[in-house]
């Protein structure tokens, strides 16, 4: 068994999942990378801020220092001259200080520099305290109180503050420099990472797509070949493993092939049975025609012998009976011939060629007219009646149809027969029309059945096989035949000689 669980095997995945993987493979890492990149940029903050802050720090440090310097100078001036103006300058310098310190406090947000800021605050506070001791006094008072050393102390504090401010300024500047360096490094890294990841993702995506395409193509080819093999009745080849949609299609195809093979076998069996039955039927028809002919010949021959040998012993009635016997034998011969012809129509395949329907019909009618002069039938054959059909079979069909028309107009006052093309249907519809006895449309269902007759032999002679033969011939051509009639108003037989595509099967 497979060591990898089923849902993790590539071959067990559906095409949909495979497609998602192929698309997701390059997109997913790219998305993760972008998430990290955006997070890094956000964490770092806007790069320009650090630099501008260091400038603010530098300026405000300078102002704080100059405020203190001004205050110190003004205090000293006031001490020695007791100038009111100097005292005013001192106070204005002290007043400026909180605002400048506050700007510094806002600008120096980096935790590593906050410590120095506190220290600066301490020093400034101490300096202010020292300067307070110097103001509003005379040097004498100062000496008396023993606070002359405050003058030195102020100078020392200012020196200390200057040094601290320098350190702070440098710290802030180096922080800004390192920040911008870090920014550049991050940018380079993001760019390089983007490049690497992009190349990897696109490459991986192409590779995965190729793998998928290849596996689909390989199996689709086998699938197509299998369809061909099934169509030719060959067993299908095994499909390379896979449980996706292609595998499902293959399984269905195999099942369809199995069903097809079985049905084909059934059909072959049935066709074999049918062919056997057909052969037997033909053998039967042949043997009937052969075996019935000999007794008929004997009936006719010996009737003739009786007629000529015993002429003196037969009266009129006897001779009439013999004549009827011989006529019946002749009729039976016709039936046998037509039946045999009908049975043989089943195995002929129409050999189609250009047939002049009109010419053929005219020739047949001319022959009828020659055989029975004095009938005086008005004949109309439309010009240009052509068809692609078997000339021999069409001749037999036309002969039968025209023979009927000729026969059933036998008792009509002004007999008329017309052969033409009806303007309907997608394929040519030919017709044979007469104004003879016609038939009852209610009986039209029986029209084309073998041995079905709609007239008695007393009215019109016939075997009942003619129209069955015509229908058989039309059917062999894939055509249709139908008729319209009015009793004593004539009949029209319509027929086509090719399949009508619009006719539902």
């Amino acid at each position, binding site marked *: 068994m497979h060591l990898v669980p089923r849902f993790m095997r590539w071959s067990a995945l559906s095409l949909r999942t495979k497609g998602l993987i192929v698309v997701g493979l390059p997109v997913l890492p790219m998305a993760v990378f972008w998430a990290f990149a955006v997070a890094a940029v956000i964490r770092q903050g806007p790069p320009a801020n650090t630099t501008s802050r260091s400038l603010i720090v530098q300026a405000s440090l300078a102002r704080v220092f100059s405020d203190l310097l001004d205050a110190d100078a003004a205090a000293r001036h006031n001490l020695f001259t007791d100038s009111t103006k100097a005292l005013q300058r001192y106070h204005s310098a002290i007043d400026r200080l909180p605002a400048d310190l506050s700007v510094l406090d806002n600008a120096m947000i980096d935790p590593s520099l906050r410590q120095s800021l506190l220290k600066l605050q301490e020093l400034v506070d101490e300096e202010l305290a020292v300067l307070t001791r110097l103001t509003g006094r005379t040097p004498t008072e100062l000496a008396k109180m023993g606070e002359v050393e405050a003058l030195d102390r102020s100078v020392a504090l200012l020196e200390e503050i200057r040094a601290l401010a320098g350190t702070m300024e440098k710290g802030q500047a180096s922080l800004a420099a390192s920040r911008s360096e870090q920014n550049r490094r991050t940018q380079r890294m993001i760019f390089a990472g983007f490049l690497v990841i992009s190349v990897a993702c696109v490459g991986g995506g192409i590779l995965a797509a190729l793998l998928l395409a290849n596996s689909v193509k390989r199996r689709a080819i086998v699938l197509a070949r299998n369809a061909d093999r099934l169509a030719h009745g060959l067993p299908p080849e095994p499909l390379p493993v896979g449980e996706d949609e292609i595998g499902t299609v293959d399984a269905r195809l195999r099942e369809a092939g199995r069903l097809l093979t079985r049905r084909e076998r059934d059909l072959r069996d049935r066709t074999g049975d049918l062919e056997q039955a057909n052969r037997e039927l033909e053998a039967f028809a*042949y043997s009937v*025609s*052969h075996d019935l*002919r*000999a*007794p*008929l*010949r*004997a009936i*006719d*021959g*010996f*009737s*003739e*012998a009786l007629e000529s040998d015993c002429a003196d012993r037969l009266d009129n009635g006897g001779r009439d009976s013999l004549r009827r016997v*011989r006529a019946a*034998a*002749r009729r039976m*011969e016709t039936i046998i*011939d037509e039946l*045999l012809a009908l049975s043989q129509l089943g195995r002929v395949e129409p050999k189609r060629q250009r047939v002049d329907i009109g010419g053929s019909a005219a020739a047949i009618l001319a022959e009828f007219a020659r055989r029975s002069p004095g009938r005086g039938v008005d004949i109309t054959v439309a010009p240009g009646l052509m068809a692609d059909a078997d000339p021999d079979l069409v001749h037999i069909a036309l002969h039968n149809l025209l023979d009927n028309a000729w026969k059933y107009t036998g008792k009509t006052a002004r007999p008329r027969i017309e052969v033409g093309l009806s303007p309907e249907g997608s394929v040519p519809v030919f017709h044979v029309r007469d104004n003879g006895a016609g038939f009852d449309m209610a009986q039209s269902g029986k029209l084309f059945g073998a041995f079905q007759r709609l007239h008695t032999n007393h009215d019109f002679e016939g075997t009942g096989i003619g129209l069955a033969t015509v229908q058989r011939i039309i059917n062999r051509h894939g055509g249709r035949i139908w008729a319209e009639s009015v009793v004593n108003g004539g009949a029209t037989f319509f027929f086509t000689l090719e399949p009508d595509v619009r006719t539902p099967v």
Partner: protein
Amino acid sequence: MTTKQILLVEDNPDDVELTMRAFRSASISHTLTVATDGAEALVALFGPPNGSPPAELPELVLLDLKLPIFDGFDVLRRIRANPRTRHLPVVILTSSTQPEDLETGYALGANSYLQKPVSFGDFLTMARQVASYWLTLNRPAHSPAKARVFG
């Protein structure tokens, strides 16, 4: 001088009788020798199995196809295979309407293929035509009897 003869190979007694009547009506003077199956036809033509062949051959063979023992085609094949009988006129006289039978008949060397008509009148006409064509117009010029007379 022996009478000239026609060999009729026919198993149906009615047809034998009708053929005889037709030939009589057509005033054909030849003797009609009848063989009722293929084996009898072969004896009439080639003699009994261990005996000598008959002195006289018929001038015409009328051959039915559906016969017991050997059928008409077998008889025709033997006639055409033997140098002595190779030139005998053979007319197939049958009820068969199968196109295959007609083709086989001519392929095996039949001189004519006639379908027996049902009507006795037509049958009589056919007998007259056969006699005038094969017994009068196309008498075998090299019959052994004649060769002896002139030779």
